């Protein structure tokens, strides 16, 4: 026998609805990325993706208290794997910052900062995400050749996400920022100062 009074059940239902509406967004990026369509460099490169990068999570309190969480470390390996498949003859993921031939250089990316804005903050209809990367370029023996920054940006219009707008739009803006980072890396690669010097030494400067 159900002894819960009808009006109590009604209030519980209304409370659950209200709590659901106030829940703060938590996104964990997943999925794959397209392989860039660019001329491939005939070299083998190494990548060191450290624990900090692979676990990178941005948490921020927005609108007086609700905490928003973006887990972006979960897709870093997929990003750099797809990027390398398009850009280099071959690549390997390394556990330490040194490698044996045929690896000629090693990239060590890190995320220095992630920022996002909501439509309420900017009085627009967009969720926006900025990711600031720093890349170390090392010789195969681990010595530093140089460093370069990379800033990526992505946005998503709320109009495209009628259901579960906040989470979906924030996820899409983050995904767009990841793709932007890949596009920048693929197309500006040869112009980045430490990379240009290395490519010139390899006779690949074009």
């Amino acid at each position, binding site marked *: 026998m159900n002894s819960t009074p009808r009006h109590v059940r009604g209030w519980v239902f209304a409370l659950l609805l209200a709590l659901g509406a106030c829940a703060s967004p938590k996104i964990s990026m997943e999925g794959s990325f397209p392989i860039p*369509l660019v001329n491939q460099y005939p070299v083998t490169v190494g990548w060191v993706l450290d624990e900090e990068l692979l676990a990178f999570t941005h948490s921020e309190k927005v609108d007086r208290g609700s905490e928003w969480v973006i887990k972006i470390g979960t897709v870093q390996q997929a990003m750099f794997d797809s990027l390398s498949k398009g850009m280099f003859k071959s690549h390997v993921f390394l556990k330490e910052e040194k490698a044996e031939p045929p690896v000629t250089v090693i990239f060590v990316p890190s995320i220095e900062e992630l920022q996002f804005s909501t439509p309420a903050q900017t009085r627009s209809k967009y969720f926006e995400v900025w990711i600031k990367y720093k890349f170390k370029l090392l010789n195969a023996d681990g010595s530093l050749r140089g460093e370069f920054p990379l800033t990526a940006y992505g*946005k998503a*219009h709320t109009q495209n996400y009628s259901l579960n707008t906040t989470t979906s739009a924030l996820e899409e803006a983050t995904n767009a920022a990841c*793709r932007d980072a890949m596009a920048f890396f693929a197309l500006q690669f040869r112009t980045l100062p430490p990379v240009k010097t290395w490519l010139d030494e390899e006779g690949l400067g074009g």
Partner: protein
Amino acid sequence: MSLIVRLAAVALTAAFCGGCVTARVEEIREGHTEMAAGDTIAVLGRRERPSAAETELDFVDCVSKNMGGGDGVSVIPDRTFRDTLFPWFEPRTAPTNTRDLPDLIGHPTFIERLNSLGIKYLVWIEGSTRRTDSAGTMSCTISPAGGGCFGFLTWENDSEYEASIWDIKQRRTVGKVSSDAVGTSYMPALIVPVPIIARVKNSACTSLADQLKIFLTAES
């Protein structure tokens, strides 16, 4: 006459007169077009920078589906095209006009992929649907014992879209097709709201897609 009867009369009038959409399509031809067997088009929404304007994804998908349906032309959807030609059609890199095409086509891998897809025309869609007017009030009450709404709302939506058609091989714009649609929606509520929606965006989409099909396949 009681208020309830008056509201019912308004709802009935709205049901007969409301939800109507007026659509207008215009076309400007600047070059010859034809689609041979194996030719494909890509329908893309504008979202390059620094413009804040962005065409709705559902509108671009709608035009793609309507152009490709039935005996339509072969269409590659926006996301598939951008992924296949990544990173050349990202907001950072997408060509903004046909003058940018020679730079892109200069990349052998790019043109090779484009040819393998059989892409002959790029259709860029710009525009959006906006609410231009609204009136009325409605109040809703919810309580553990039940709930309901009471009132009357009306709003007008305006869809304005323009499609630019680029010929990849000729590297120039061969024409433009625009679609404007206006419609008024109503929502009377007497306990339960009864939405009488004017499908403005859908009307603009089907009009644009039909005209684009004619533009690309008709002898010119």
